[in-house]
Structure formats: structure tokens, C-alpha cells
């Protein structure tokens, strides 16, 4: 890869393109219009081919970008209007309308392309590059054009920020304010067409939709705040665009669109797995933590109740060690599980561990007392309401007691300061 002037310009142009696509894509995703870009992209093909045909017939260079982009824009707008017209029939929903328009326009483009290829002059030169994108074939002036169009879209986005935000988050409120959401939607469609057309040569019309969807979806996983979402989405878009151009410079045979999409998909996958609050890993960790906390409560309570059943209490003269097997039996657990939990609790200094027996430490006793109070609070409440029988109250309490604060437990209990007796026999499960 030689970092010549041309390569650098193309790289910068693709990064700017990604920046604009990320920004517009964020609004498109929030407004539920992301797939319109798919229709626009595919619909652009016949426009590009016709424009090349007309330019060549007039005797100009058919590789000049502006007429091709103009053709793409006109065909793209025609595609959007067709989607809306079909959706207005109400028999065909918007998603089906998008599929119809993108496939039919694309088919027309393919038919036209096969016709142009039979012509003697070189009108078709490089037209297939628009389908999957080839950033390496871009000239510096092409990159300037793409970047200029992208910047125009970005600027419009910033100018319309307030209206777009209102339309995305609270269309009804926007209407009350006197903002016309229909007009804002139209502007958003215009923005989508603009960035899509700007990205045709670099990314290709088949995959351009991904440059709008993937950065926005990635940002959506990482934040809830709109300004941050726009910034993240734009940044991810820029990274995708630049990486795609770089990949194309390294291996010109590689379709740039594919490289762009795979970089975007990698970003999205990372966010999906590792996002702090919505990521799958964080979610799994949270749920594992919850389960551990529950098991811990149950273990401590079983240890406490084993003492209670023997007529002794922690800190009293009859304070005894409890076999882990007894706790396992009381909870209906396997001995292995009870043993692992006991070791974990010993590590946290909540129980003392000796010869397969446990003993609550002062900290453990305090935690166990809290767990017992919470459990009995729920049990008593359910029984007082007549909502469950004794066994049912025990089972239900096992499920809900864990979120209970000591204050709430106190309010639910008949004798707020004391530890009430268990309503059922302690020890093995019924």
C-alpha cells in the first residue's frame, strides 16, 4: 500500500462520508426509517446507468462523477416516492414496499446495464463498481465530491437538529409545538438520499444501508443520550469508512462495501457483547450476581434456622456448628453446591468452615438475621392476606425476599423489633 496523495484523499473522503452516514443513520434509526436507505441505494442503479448513457451520448466523459450522482439522486428520490405511494395503498406495508422498490429498480438497472454493455463505446466503464464499491478506483476529485455531499448532509443535520430530535422522540409533542413532522420526515428522507448517493462509489449500492444502520445501532447500545449517540455513531461511521478505504487500497480486488460492513459489524458485535449496561456480557454478569446473592441469602438463612431448630442461637451458650449436609438438605441442594457456597461465604468471612461444618461469624449472623427477617416478613404478610398457605408462602418468599430492605421488612412484620417465629417447621423441605 503506497500512501500517495490520492490514497490519502480517498481515505479522508471515506472517513468524512462515514461521519455523515453515521449521523444521518442515527436519526433514521430512531425514526424507524433505516431501511429506506436500502431502497434508495438499490434504486440508484438505473439512474447511474441512464446518466452514464446520456453523458456518453452527448460526447462527454462518462466517468465524471457529478452527472452519475445526479442520476443516482433522481432515481433514489423516485424510489422513495414509489415506496410511499405503495405504502399509501394500505394493502402493502412499508417493509414490503421497500423490498418491491429495491428489487424492481435494481432489476431495471441490471437490464439497462446489460444493454449498455452491448454498445460499442465505453459508456459502461466502471459502472459495476457502483454495485459493490471500490474505493481504490476513486480519483481524488471523486473523493472531494463524495466528501462535499457528505458534509452538506452533516451541516443540514446540525441545522435541523431541534426538529429532528422532536420528530424522533416525541412526534405528538412536536405537532403541539407547531413543528410539522411531515416536513421533518421529508427532510430526513432527503438527508438519507444525499448520504446514500454520496457513498455509492466508495461503498456500493448493495451495502450502503449498512453504513447508516450499523454505526447507529452500535451507538444505541452504548448510550441513551442523543448528543452522545450522534457523536458515537458518527465516530463509528468514520472508522468504518476509513477502514474500508484502507482495505480497498491494500487489496483492490476486495469489494470496499464488504470491508466497510464487516468493520461496522465488528464494532456492533463488540458493543452488543461488552456495552456496560445493555451488553450481553454485562447482562449475564448481572444475572449471575443476582443468582449468587440469592443463593447466599438462602444459605445463611438455612444456617441460622438450623441453629434455631436446635433451640440455640448464634452467640448463646448452645451455639453449635451446623453440618453442610443439613443445610443442603434444608434447601434441597446437592452437597457439592452447598460446599462451594460455603467456601465462597468463608472467603467473604461470613461463615467459619471446619470439617464440613459451618458456623456463622458475627458478620454472617447479622446478614443471616436480615435474610431471616426479610423471609418471614414476606411470609407473614402473605399469610395475613390469606394469599397462600404455609408452604406456598415459604416458596413465594424465597422468590421475592431478596430485594427487601430491612426497613420494609420491619413494616411488614407483626412485631417490628423482634424476630418472629417461622410459620412452618424448620429443617428439611416439605
Amino acid at each position, binding site marked *: 500500500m503506497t500512501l500517495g496523495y490520492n490514497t490519502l484523499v480517498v481515505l479522508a473522503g471515506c472517513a468524512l462520508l462515514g461521519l455523515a452516514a453515521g449521523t444521518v443513520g442515527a436519526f433514521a434509526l430512531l425514526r424507524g426509517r433505516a431501511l429506506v436507505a436500502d431502497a434508495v441505494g438499490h434504486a440508484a442503479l438505473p439512474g447511474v446507468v441512464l446518466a452514464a448513457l446520456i453523458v456518453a451520448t452527448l460526447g462527454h466523459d462518462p466517468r465524471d462523477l457529478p452527472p452519475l450522482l445526479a442520476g443516482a439522486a433522481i432515481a433514489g428520490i423516485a424510489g422513495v416516492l414509489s415506496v410511499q405511494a405503495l405504502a399509501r395503498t394500505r394493502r402493502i406495508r412499508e417493509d414490503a414496499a421497500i423490498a*418491491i422498490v429495491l428489487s*424492481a429498480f*435494481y432489476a431495471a438497472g441490471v437490464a439497462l446495464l446489460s444493454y449498455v454493455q452491448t454498445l460499442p463505446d465505453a459508456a459502461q466503464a466502471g459502472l459495476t463498481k457502483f454495485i459493490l464499491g471500490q474505493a481504490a478506483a476513486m480519483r481524488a476529485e471523486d473523493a472531494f465530491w463524495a466528501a462535499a455531499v457528505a458534509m452538506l448532509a452533516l451541516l443540514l443535520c446540525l441545522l435541523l437538529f431541534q426538529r429532528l430530535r422532536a420528530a424522533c422522540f416525541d412526534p405528538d409533542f412536536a405537532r403541539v409545538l407547531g413543528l410539522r413532522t411531515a416536513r421533518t420526515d421529508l427532510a430526513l428522507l432527503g438527508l438519507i438520499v444525499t448520504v446514500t448517493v454520496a457513498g455509492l462509489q466508495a461503498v456500493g449500492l448493495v451495502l450502503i444501508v*449498512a453504513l447508516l444502520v450499523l454505526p*447507529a445501532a452500535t451507538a*444505541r447500545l452504548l448510550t441513551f443520550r442523543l448528543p452522545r449517540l450522534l457523536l458515537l455513531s458518527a465516530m463509528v461511521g468514520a472508522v468504518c469508512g476509513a477502514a474500508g478505504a484502507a482495505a480497498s487500497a491494500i487489496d483492490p480486488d476486495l*469489494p470496499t462495501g464488504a470491508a466497510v460492513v464487516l468493520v461496522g459489524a465488528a464494532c456492533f458485535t463488540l458493543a452488543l457483547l461488552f456495552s456496560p449496561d445493555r451488553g450481553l456480557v454485562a447482562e449475564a454478569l448481572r444475572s449471575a450476581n443476582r443468582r449468587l446473592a440469592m443463593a447466599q441469602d438462602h444459605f445463611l438463612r438455612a444456617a441460622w434456622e438450623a441453629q434455631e431448630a436446635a433451640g440455640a442461637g448464634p452467640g448463646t451458650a448452645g451455639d453449635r456448628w451446623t453440618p453442610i449436609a443439613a443445610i443442603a438438605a434444608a434447601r434441597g441442594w446437592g452437597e457439592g453446591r452447598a460446599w462451594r457456597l460455603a467456601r465462597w461465604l468463608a472467603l467473604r468471612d461470613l461463615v467459619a468452615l471446619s470439617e464440613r461444618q459451618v458456623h456463622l461469624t458475627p458478620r454472617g449472623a447479622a446478614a443471616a438475621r436480615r435474610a431471616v427477617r426479610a423471609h418471614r416478613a414476606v411470609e407473614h404478610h402473605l399469610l395475613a392476606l390469606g394469599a397462600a398457605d404455609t408452604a406456598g408462602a415459604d416458596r413465594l418468599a424465597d422468590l421475592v425476599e431478596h430485594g427487601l430492605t430491612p426497613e420494609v421488612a420491619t413494616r411488614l412484620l407483626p412485631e417490628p423489633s423482634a424476630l418472629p417465629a417461622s410459620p412452618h417447621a424448620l429443617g428439611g423441605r416439605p
Partner: protein
Amino acid sequence: MSAPDFLRLDLPALVAAMLACGTCGLLGSFLLLRRDSLLGDALSHAVLPGIIAGFALTGARSGLPMLAGALAAALAATVLITVVRRAARIESGAATGAVFTTFFAGGLVLMEVSGARSVDLDLDCVLFGQLETVVWLEAQGWSSLLDPAALAHLPRQLHLLAGVAAAVVLIVALLWRPLHLLCFDPDYAAALGLPARRLEMALNLMVAAAAVAAFEAVGSILVVAMLVCPAAALRLLTDDYRVQVLGGAALGAGLGVAGYALAGPLPAAAGLTLSLNAAGAIGTLGGIVVAAAALLRPRAAAGRREEPAIA
């Protein structure tokens, strides 16, 4: 054109177009009625990496490994779309777009890396279809149609297409009532104890199989046209389930034949030199039919009720 030429060049392509478009047209109605048309779009793109992997692993462009790979990729894509939609909490359209573009891009890169592209499976086949390459060189004349030796050399794509078409027709015939219920009243279907999720899965797998079989003939993207256009045109014109489904299949098959004829043989017969990509002509015709149906549909019926329920 002489009979042998017709048999060698046009008949196989015509039959391929008819089978591919008919199968897609049949399945398209179910997708449309279930408001799942984008899934057809997604699956027809998502099968690409599976096709390439099946091809790369066996090194041969034979039907079954590619079909198996494509079905696996389609299953993975449908599962992933659900995972992404739930985990990222984005609308299903955006989740679909994110997943299928990724699969398609992966397929393109796999094609580049595995060297499949240079050998046999090229990009043009994915993007434009290769209906014109479906030829039956062994045909000598009309008698060849009855000659087992010549029939054994029918193009490979036709075997796959015919097999998938027969399987799809059989499954649809067997599941006629359950699919009807699934399309119009999924809740009632579930209440009746129908395995709705398995039915959906069967439908998706049929779409994927049709997409693979049709892929070589009309190309990855034009499969979408055949999945949505006939069904949408019929949806604009009829409220009858039987007419919708069977009509979709018939219209699809008709579009396939008409599109192929318009692309090459008819202009040639008229003495013109015009020759278009057949898949492109078929897809364009599909769009025109939908537009005509939208313009010509009975206005009175359209104004009577907003969204009439099909009986």
C-alpha cells in the same frame, strides 16, 4: 430458430425461470401476509456465505452441499436477527438490515479469500444471475425430450430447482390449513395448539431453499423481486387466500417466462439485435406488474374498508 437450438438454449432457461419464479411467487404470499417480506430480502442475501462455504468445503459446484450450507446460514441469520432485535432493542427492520448486510459482506469476502470467485462461482452470478448459462447441449431435437441418455445431461441447476419446487409444493399442500391460520390469526393458531414457531421455521427454511435454488438462475438480489412482486400484485387485487397463494405462484411463473422471452428470444424473433439480461427483465416486469395492480385495483373495494381481512 430451429427446434434443436430452442431445446439447447431457450427451453432449459425458460424452465429454470419458470420454476424459480413460480416457487418464489408461491412462498412470497405467505411472507407478505405474515408481514415478513423483509425476511425474504434478508434470507436471499444471508444465504451467500453458506453457499460459498458449501462450495469451498467440497470444491465442487454441486447442489446439495451448497443447499445445506445455505440452509445453515439462513437459520443462523434468523436466530441472529431475533437476538439483535431483543438485545439491542432496535426495530426489527434495522436488526434485519444489520444482520443480512453483514452476512452478505461476509460471503463476498469469503468468496475472495477462498478463491471460489476465480474458479467457478463469480460475482456476476450473485449480482445479475446467469439464466443464459443454463443450457442443454445434448439436445438433438424434439425426440431428445424422450431420450433418457440426453435427459440425463439436463443442466444441474434444473435438477436442484425442480427438486426444491416439488418439495415446496408438497409441503405447502400438506400445511395448507395451518399456514392459512398462521398467516391470519397466529394467536388463534397458537390457541389451537399449532406449533407456530416450527411452522415459521419451516416457512423460513423453504424460503431459504428457494433462494438458493433460484440464486444461480436469477441472482441473489432478484430473488427478492420474485418473492415480493407477484404476492404484492395479487394482494392489491384479491381478498381470497386461495387466489392469493396459487395466483402468486402462477403469476411468478408467468413473469419468469415472459421476462425471459422479452429479454432475448422475442426481440430476436422480431429481427432486433436487442438482448437484455434475462433476470433484469424479469425483475423489471415484476415491478411493472405491481405498479399496474396499484393503479388498476378496484377503487370501490379499496375505499370500502381500510384493511379488509382475507377470508
